[in-house]
């Protein structure tokens, strides 16, 4: 008998795949898809809102009553001097009139109407609350001033966002926990079907870690694959969603934006890794539990 050169390479000690594992792959992919999608949309709406609130934060409007143009100019100069103010701009009467146009029509304002004098103030980033120092400085100089602060509004938006983010986080956590549980369960089932292999390996003198590693490697790869499929699908779905909404909605500034920054990539990268670890650890625990019943 010729020494066969056709002898195939060592095949895996565990069967390549079976229907159970294909089903498991699908489940892992689906769960990872949902988790990544929730995480991505939580991330992007938070990002949009953060941008949005920070844009409106640090902006104040000062409204002066009973001042002429010269006094308004003095007030503007005074405000510019206050610490923490980056810029102050007196809004010209025509611009203010334009803002009021929706109420008074395009014919212009009635001549006698006292149009308020408005000064737009932007703060140096991180300067903190300016409203109080503006009020006291203007009051001391004898101005009758009202400060319109956007901070309150920004806080409301942030509170709502915080809750949305918490809900998304809870959903992601729940999905991850479910995935881990499903994987652990499926691993257990796969192991019961593989009991003969575990047994023969065990009685051939394979140490517990050797046997556990076989299953760990198998389920690590399965988790990674399922997770990657899910993550890529989530990315595609998110892009599609933004594209579809973006092309139909006028108020695009309200949309979550999918800029795919570092954090989005991190989510997409972490999804398969978490799935991989979940299946790997579950596999290890199940195999070792099973082996603990043998002598």
């Amino acid at each position, binding site marked *: 008998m010729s020494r*066969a050169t056709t002898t195939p*390479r060592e095949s895996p000690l565990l069967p390549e795949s079976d229907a159970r594992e294909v089903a498991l792959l699908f489940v892992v992919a689906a769960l990872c898809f949902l988790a990544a999608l929730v995480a991505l949309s939580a991330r992007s709406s938070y990002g949009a809102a953060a941008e949005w609130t920070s844009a409106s934060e640090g902006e104040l409007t000062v409204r002066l009553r009973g001042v002429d143009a010269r006094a308004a100019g003095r007030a503007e100069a005074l405000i510019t001097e206050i610490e923490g103010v980056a810029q102050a701009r007196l809004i010209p009467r025509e611009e203010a009139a334009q803002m009021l146009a929706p109420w008074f029509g395009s014919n212009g304002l009635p001549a006698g109407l006292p149009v308020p004098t408005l000064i737009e103030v932007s703060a140096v980033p991180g300067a903190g609350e300016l409203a109080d120092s503006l009020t006291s400085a203007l009051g001391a100089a004898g101005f009758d001033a009202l400060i319109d602060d956007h901070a309150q509004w920004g806080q409301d938006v942030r509170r709502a966002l915080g809750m949305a983010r918490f809900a998304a986080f809870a959903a992601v956590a729940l999905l991850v926990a479910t995935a881990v549980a499903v994987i652990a369960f499926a691993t257990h089932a796969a192991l019961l079907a593989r009991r003969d292999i575990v047994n023969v390996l065990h009685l051939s003198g394979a140490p*517990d870690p050797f046997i556990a590693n076989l299953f760990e490697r198998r389920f690590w790869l399965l988790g990674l694959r399922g997770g990657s499929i899910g993550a890529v699908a989530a990315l595609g779905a998110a892009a599609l969603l933004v594209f579809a909404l973006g092309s139909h909605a006028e108020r695009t500034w309200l949309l979550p934006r999918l800029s795919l920054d570092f954090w989005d990539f991190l989510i997409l990268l972490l999804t398969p890794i978490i799935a991989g670890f979940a299946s790997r650890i579950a596999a290890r625990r199940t195999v070792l539990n099973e082996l603990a019943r043998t002598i």
Partner: protein
Amino acid sequence: MIVTMTRHSPDRIDAPSVRFDRVGLRYDSSEDVLSDLTFELEQGAFAFLTGASGAGKTSLLRLIYLALRPTHGEVYLFGQRVSQLRRAQLSALRRRVGIVFQDFRLLEHLSAYENVALPLRVQGQKEPNYRADVEDLLNWVGLGERLHARPETLSGGEQQRVAIARALVSKPDLLIADEPTGNVDPNMAERLMRLFAELNSRLGASVLVATHDHGLIARHNAPVLRLQNGLLVRDGQERAG
């Protein structure tokens, strides 16, 4: 009752391969399958184990190949008290034991060749190094043409021969064979027995063969352990020491 096998090589001073000290076994709540067995299988010994169906032959062998713990008493393997060993040490002992299971236990997804190579892979050996040994052994048991066949495509007798090749391939210090000739014709049975004898005489391995084939026992001059009512009775011929 004490049954002591004569030493195959009298100059050995090593511990017996197997020693049972008042070993009893009971599954769940049923009555004792084995009661109070005390015997030794000396290193290098060749012995038969016989007894009616259900007498407990497989159970006794399972105690030896460390698939079961006794309900009471102590089992010693290669001089080591099994109950005192850690799991890693038990694994190391198992690697010195070749087992032919009564129900073969071949892995269905592996070819005959790969099934035979399994114990070597467990020992960490790599494919090109063991190929010759595995193929020679499969040739010897008459399966040189079926190297890549899956177990399900083999006859019962062919599967049995793959199982035997797997038990022998790592040249174990102790061979435990549970009805190894139950599915083959008398010619093949003799051929397989010669393989066991060779492992025993050339490599000094201890061999314990469970069988109800009286013809087989009659043709071989080896001590016989008979299980009856959970006890060991010794009969048959004794090989001169």
